[in-house]
């Protein structure tokens, strides 16, 4: 049953089949137009002057020399855009251009619009900025220790942006019931998205006072709102068009300075203005993986069952809030979704430092805690004398589970996933049996398919789809989703085609245009397939009803007997009796007038009722098991990942070849983070990024990428369109810990910090040879005063999903 996921439901004609993506030919022929490919008549070019210092007050900006430079049309500074903004309403701490101070090397302070890129670049040198340097905050420890100066004047205190503490059940009681309790301190280094396309935007402001912004963005809807807020013009005067996005991975979710700046310049100059960031600037925009230090204390019994976990995290957030408050939640809130965990306490602190701001990168805040949890699970198995694959199988969350923190899990085939990779890899013959230098390791994970609530609170749908059918036979699908390479445009076509019984290429997909398309809140949180898919199905089913009524009347056949398939509508009892799809559309258009339908999707309410309970719950959870086989050279410390076996619970693949592409991409990105990717900063209080280029920031090429064996498993998820769950993020999560666990199997050393570079492996091997602990990783977890926990009784304690009110009230004081 498992494996041939695509053919699971044979009655489906489109779903589960390897159709081409609707946009792939354009992408293979150079026809697809990305943001920087666009030009408009009279277009100007913009460049940003970025701060050369990490933390300073701006004493003076003199733009007069730049303004006088031939070819320069305007020089914009911070006071021209005084309204602050930020991805989340709770941390609107950014300005399009810095006004009073700069907070990291690369923070934009001025913008030039000129007749060409060269002139704009040359003019940057003519802007004189006088800085008064401030002490810098470079690390988590410094953020704890130094409360003056503050990078921001808001947050918890000093340079601590955010603290949160939740306790579900009682970890003390859980530890008391345990046979063993262990705490492991681990670190996950920051890494960046490194999408191939550099961010680019083109703004146009027409003489009827309407702004159009074409931009390489994942979250067009939020950008639309932020533009209105900062530019102080109504949203109905702004059109945002998400161009085909040349890679996102979370890096194009935030509203960016340059998007606002070119819009403002276009408004001032009434000429189109374009910007394309350099690769170095993309590193400064960042918003990538937070460096996270973790202390994970877990109580467990001799059979490997977990009695309690107390998980603490510190996030180095960099210079701005961005999505950081959400990231902070995600460093703990999903720890309960892979294995049975009856008592759970989670403490998190996010600090500000004078570095490029961190934010959402593939897996948003969860690869770090998965890493901590999964390398600890390996140790727990060893301590209990259990096979780590068997132990995981035994402890796996089962379908329908409600976690200690009130997250409802739907379908969940983790056990099946573990069985697949264990069998496929020959685990039983290899684990602890391979020669020195060769090793095998396992890890698992679970991930959400979208969040219960959007970024700003509202009761409107998260996703909307409109359909237009007309006498041409064309079905046009309008949706505000942003195609970032994951295939979201195609998902719409497949879902609508399946419902209407036509070919996906009989449709036209129009997405990512706030003037034309109903709102979808964006390509993030692995939400797009589930939410736009459900909305598309609803719209298509409504359209099918129009056709059904018209055809039933014409053929004198009961409507419920009509079948929509193979571009025909026909009587199931007499398939010869029917008509073509286009004839059905003509009939319906004659009977009902112009045809159009809508569909929308709002996630179901989650059972948790405490403050913060909306972060974590999702309409559906995917899960993944991965096994890595590695070669470790004990002379050089070089780790080569030879192969990964990875089984992913997709529910029902809408298009299996696209799902496998996502899974392989997940393995790739996880491998890069595990072994080499590193947002590295120079020390000595300079806080300058060390490696802002493709050459210096190491990422896997074809020579480092491993072989991948993928299994698609699971049962269709009732909450998901045709049962399809996510694949874009979840499968990345088990990859780094599987590799770390395999390294331990190969050479008996534990590298408890990402990336696992050869120097760390070699150091651990040498320590072990000296009879010391063969481990490299953090040993100290800094602490700071924490508020009282929000205490929430678990479902197993007879809780009702609410926090204990008295404790919650104390926290606020």
């Amino acid at each position, binding site marked *: 049953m498992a494996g041939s996921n695509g053919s699971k439901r044979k009655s489906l004609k489109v779903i589960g089949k390897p159709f081409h993506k609707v946009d792939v030919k354009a992408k293979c022929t150079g026809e697809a137009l990305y943001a920087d490919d666009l030009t408009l008549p009279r277009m100007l070019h913009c460049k940003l002057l970025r701060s050369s210092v990490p933390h300073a007050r701006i004493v003076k900006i003199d733009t007069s020399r730049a303004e006088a430079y031939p070819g320069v049309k305007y020089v914009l500074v911070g006071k021209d855009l005084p309204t602050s903004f930020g991805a989340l309403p709770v941390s609107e701490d950014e300005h399009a251009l810095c006004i009073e101070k700069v907070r990291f090397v690369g923070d934009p302070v001025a913008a030039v619009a000129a007749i060409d890129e060269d002139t704009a670049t040359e003019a940057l040198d003519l802007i004189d900025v006088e800085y008064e340097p401030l002490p810098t905050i470079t690390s988590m420890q410094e953020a704890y220790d130094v409360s003056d100066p503050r990078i921001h004047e808001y947050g918890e205190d000093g340079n601590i942006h955010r603290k949160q503490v939740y306790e579900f059940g009682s970890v003390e009681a859980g530890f008391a019931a345990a046979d063993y309790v262990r705490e492991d301190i681990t670190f996950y280094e920051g890494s960046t998205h490194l999408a191939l396309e550099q961010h680019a935007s083109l703004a146009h402001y027409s003489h009827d006072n309407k702004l159009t912004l074409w931009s390489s963005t994942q979250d067009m809807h939020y950008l639309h709102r932020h533009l209105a807020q900062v530019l102080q013009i109504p949203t109905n005067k702004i059109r945002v068009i998400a161009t085909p996005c040349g890679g996102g991975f979370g890096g194009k979710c935030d509203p960016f300075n340059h998007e606002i700046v070119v819009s403002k310049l276009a408004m001032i100059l009434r000429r189109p203005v374009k910007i394309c960031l350099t690769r170095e600037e993309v590193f400064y925009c960042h918003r990538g993986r937070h460096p996270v230090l973790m202390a994970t204390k877990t109580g467990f019994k001799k059979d490997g069952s977990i009695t309690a976990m107390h998980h603490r995290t510190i996030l180095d957030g960099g210079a701005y809030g961005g999505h950081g408050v959400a990231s902070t939640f995600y460093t703990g809130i999903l720890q309960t979704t892979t294995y049975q965990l009856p008592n759970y306490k989670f403490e998190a602190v996010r600090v500000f430092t004078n570095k490029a701001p961190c934010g959402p990168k593939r897996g948003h805040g969860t690869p770090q805690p998965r890493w901590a949890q999964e390398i600890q699970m390996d140790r727990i198995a060893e301590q209990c004398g259990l096979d780590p694959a068997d132990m995981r199988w035994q402890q796996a969350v089962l379908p329908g589970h409600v976690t200690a923190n009130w997250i409802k899990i739907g379908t969940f085939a983790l056990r099946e996933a573990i069985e697949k990779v264990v069998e496929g890899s020959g685990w039983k013959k290899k684990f602890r049996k391979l020669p020195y230098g060769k090793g095998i390791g396992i890890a698992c994970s679970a991930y959400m398919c979208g969040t219960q609530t959007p970024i700003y609170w509202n009761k409107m749908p998260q996703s909307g789809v409109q359909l237009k059918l007309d006498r041409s036979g064309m079905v046009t699908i309008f949706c505000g989703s942003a195609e970032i390479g994951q295939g979201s445009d195609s998902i719409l076509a497949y879902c609508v085609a399946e419902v209407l019984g036509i070919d996906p290429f009989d449709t036209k997909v129009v997405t990512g245009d706030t003037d034309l398309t109903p709102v979808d809140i964006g390509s993030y949180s692995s939400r797009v397939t589930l939410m736009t898919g459900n909305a598309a199905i609803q719209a298509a089913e409504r359209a099918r009803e129009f056709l059904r009524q018209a055809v039933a009347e014409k053929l004198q056949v009961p409507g419920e007997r009509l079948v929509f398939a193979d571009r025909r509508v026909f009587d199931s009892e007499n398939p010869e009796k029917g008509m073509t799809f286009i004839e059905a559309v003509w009939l319906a258009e004659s009977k009902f007038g112009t045809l159009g339908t809508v569909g929308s999707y709002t996630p179901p309410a989650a059972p948790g009722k405490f403050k913060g309970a909306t972060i974590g719950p999702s309409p559906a959870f995917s899960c993944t098991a991965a096994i890595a086989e590695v070669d470790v050279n004990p002379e050089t410390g070089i780790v080569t990942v030879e192969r990964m076996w990875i089984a992913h619970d997709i529910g029902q693949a809408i298009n299996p070849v696209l799902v496998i592409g996502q899974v392989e991409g997940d393995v*790739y990105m996880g491998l890069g983070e595990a072994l080499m990717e590193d947002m590295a900063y120079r020390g000595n209080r300079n806080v300058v990024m060390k490696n802002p280029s493709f050459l210096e920031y190491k990422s896997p090429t074809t020579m480092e990428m491993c072989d991948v064996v993928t299994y698609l498993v699971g049962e269709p998820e009732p909450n998901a369109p045709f049962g399809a769950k996510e694949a874009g993020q979840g499968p990345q999560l088990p990859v780094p810990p599987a590799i770390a666990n395999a390294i331990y199997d190969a050479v008996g050393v534990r590298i408890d910090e990402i990336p696992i570079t050869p120097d760390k492996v070699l150091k651990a091997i040498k320590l072990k040879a000296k009879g010391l602990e063969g481990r490299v990783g953090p040993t100290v977890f800094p602490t700071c005063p924490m508020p009282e926990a929000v205490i929430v009784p678990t479902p197993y304690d007879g809780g009702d999903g609410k926090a204990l009110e008295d404790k919650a009230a104390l926290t606020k004081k």
Partner: protein
Amino acid sequence: MKTVKKSKTKLEKAHISLRVNGESVEVAFAPHKTLLEVLREDMGLTGTKHGCELGECGCCAVLVDGQPVLSCLVLGLAVEGREVATIEGMADGTSLHPLQQTFAELGAAQCGYCTPGFLLTAKVLIEKDAKPTREEIKEALAGNICRCTGYIKIYEAVELAAARMRGEQAEPAEESIYGRQ
């Protein structure tokens, strides 16, 4: 306001003749421009992409006299009289090149941004070697970075296109499409 003179006087535009995608063309451009910039900005051939403009990512690969080069590292002036091939010229009229077809079949283009560079580089590989091994494909494509696919679907697409170009009736492996059973 004081006036500021341009630090350097702009050089006159260079004017060259070359062949692009099989057609003779003339183009004028500022002489410091790279081939990448000339193609994109002066000839409207935006199918050639850029990811770093420093010769590090492979996005901007085009063929000059049949050999892959990074167009961000070549001056426009250097292609006077040469034959340049870009992604826009890869299809043969109405027929996609077999590589374009197999990239579509296997989902080897996700965001599509690195795709033109991969396609052109792979084209040269399979013209030279009708049956490259997986290792030879990896080596040939080692200068092209893709952040979406993990390269696997790209290898499979190159192997499939090479097989078809050898005249074989090749289809994607079941495992590539549906996963291992």
